[in-house]
């Protein structure tokens, strides 16, 4: 089945992939932290989109599509990007490190934790890219 980003099916597939990917499990074995994404409207995305992932020791414990920010008031990281920038990352057009270092992806949370776990972050992006068949 083709998975289109953004959609609830995409997020569920991402959850399943994280929980079955051995490489990610190994690299992210020390990761403890949930992510709240804000995708700002641009191009085909007409309204601000949110999604949430709870990542823990190489697994994904929970995902929520279009949550309210108040549902998860203190995520470990809040990540904000425009729709085009996030889809460029998912399609491999934009290097995720470039996205972070040029503020195309704004990061709120412990930068130290992020720097210690860059390999985990990069492998999370790999997994997300692998479940992305099409862009809206």
């Amino acid at each position: 089945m083709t998975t289109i980003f953004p959609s609830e099916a995409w997020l569920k597939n991402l959850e399943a992939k994280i929980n079955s990917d051995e490489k990610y499990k190994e690299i992210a074995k020390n990761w403890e932290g949930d992510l709240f994404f804000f995708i700002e409207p641009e191009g085909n995305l007409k309204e601000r989109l949110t999604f949430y992932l709870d990542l823990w020791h190489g697994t994904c414990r929970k995902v929520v599509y279009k949550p309210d920010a108040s549902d998860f008031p203190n995520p470990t990281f809040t990540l904000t990007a425009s729709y085009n920038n996030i889809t460029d990352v998912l399609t491999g057009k934009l290097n995720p490190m470039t996205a972070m270092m040029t503020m195309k992806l704004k990061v709120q949370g412990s930068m130290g934790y992020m720097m210690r776990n860059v390999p985990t972050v990069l492998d999370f992006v790999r997994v997300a890219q692998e479940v992305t068949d099409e862009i809206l």
Partner: protein
Amino acid sequence: MLPILKINLTTNQTEEFIIPKEWEKDFIGGASLGARILYSHLTKELNPLSPESPLLFINGPLSGTNGPTTGRFVICGKSPATNLWAESNIGGFWGPELRKAGYDGLWITGKASSQVYVWIQDGRFEVRPAAHIWGQDVYETQETIKAEIGVKNARVACIGEAGENQVLYASICCDHGRMAGRTGLGAVMGSKNLKAIAVQGTQKFEVTQEYVRLRSESNRMLKQDNESRVMNEVGTAGAANYAEYLGAMPSKYYQQGVFENVDNVSGVKMTETILVGRSACQGCVIACGRVVNLGDGQKRKGPEYETIVGFGPNLLIEDLHEVTRLGELCDKYGMDTISTANTIGLAFKLFDDGKITLQDTGGLVLDWGNFLSVRQLIRMIARREGIGDLLANGARQFGKSFNSEDEAVQVNGLEVAYHDPRGVSGMALSYATSPRGACHNQSDYFFVDWGHTHEQIGINFYERQAQAEKAANVAKHQDWRTHYNSVVICIFASVSPEMQVDLLNAQLNLNWTIEDLIKSGERAWNLKRAINNRLGVTRQNDKLPKALLEPYQEGGSAGFVPDIQGMLSAYYEARGWDWETGKPKKEKLIELGLDEMVKDLWE
């Protein structure tokens, strides 16, 4: 910019040098303007440690205006380590204070007949005896002088014992351990019997309303920037884990591409264990400086990335407390930590290889991880005692002393910093072509190889181990960083080109474009090349040491070495440099308005 005060320490005479307006227009300020000012004075015959050797302290046009990281200044001259162009960029508060005292630079020549320090207050100049402070460390020196002149808020740039003893990588320090570390200008200062320069002033800077608006906006954006927040939270060494993962952080003197326990010495670990505060240079909102407590109740400067890797992984030392103390010892003696750790690393390797014996070391065992030996060596270098006298001449000369010059990880006499071109290949060109030897600051291209692009000015992302295809990109990045070193702003400041040109235009009432800034950077890069050509540099100087051309067996960059010849060929093409001579071609010099250099290089 304000005048430069010329000081002849032999005669104690001074005169004001008014910077020609067309030079300011072409070179902006800082290191670029310094190169223009010193161009005709830096001859091949000039001994960098002779009285005739110039030592130029120079600001940029925005120094002290509280713009984004604009509190910095540059020190320039001829390097005793490389015998080539020397520049070293330094933060703290000294540069802005000099401007408040009425000058944007000090141009020092001559040699005092006895040890002295200089005291400048609101345009008033005085030379004072310094025999009683000769031998004091850089922090004691600052305190002694401030007490003596009775001005608590004076700022003092000074040398330690390493500069006094003309260690070829002696640094100049100001404020809270801010160092002009590279190229050995502390030795030049020492050769002039000049211990320190104290400055204080009360002049106010005029800033335009538009500049005030833009600096607020740019500082606000800079503070929110992801990279700034990394620097603030975990310091420059926050990148240690990632650099090690990429195989871009050398260990065991560039022989090992992995350092398993990197986390023990990382900036993140520092933050979690010993960090008690942060420090900033004048007007800086990033505050990458570390203040640490090692459990003895004392607050001290914490090490940055280069010091951590140099004394940590490079020497296989895993104890962050010890690495901190070793860095502090270098600072106190006024000695560049990159070159010190690199040269000691070479000694460890040669000891390991049996090329240095206990007889050479005076009984000191140089085994990897032995921080007690490192501590001893640092003292011996600063005082030029025993084997320290050889080490004080830098890795190239030290290697030569033991018939092992090719083992020294250096380019043109400047020791390589701790960003390995096998993991981030752009650094191959940064090191091979930098005007001051193996320098990571003339183009910190490792950031681009990690992903920090500047798309607005055509600095794009290439794979971190790409080869010749990134050569033109490296050249553009060098030009952009040369612009930074002219303004003078910190390379950690992610300020957009648009904002930079707006800030300059608002304050200086100009109509510069982004292209003008990049062109100015390119002009200065070529001017510095012309200086070095006149000092003897040819294409044969553009090279990498043997160690960086041998692949690592393990880690994130295993098996890769940069194709330096292929990269250089593409680089020369992009630069418009002549492959036979290593000089900028005539037409390139003319295009950049460097007609005077055409005559000197080609006629």
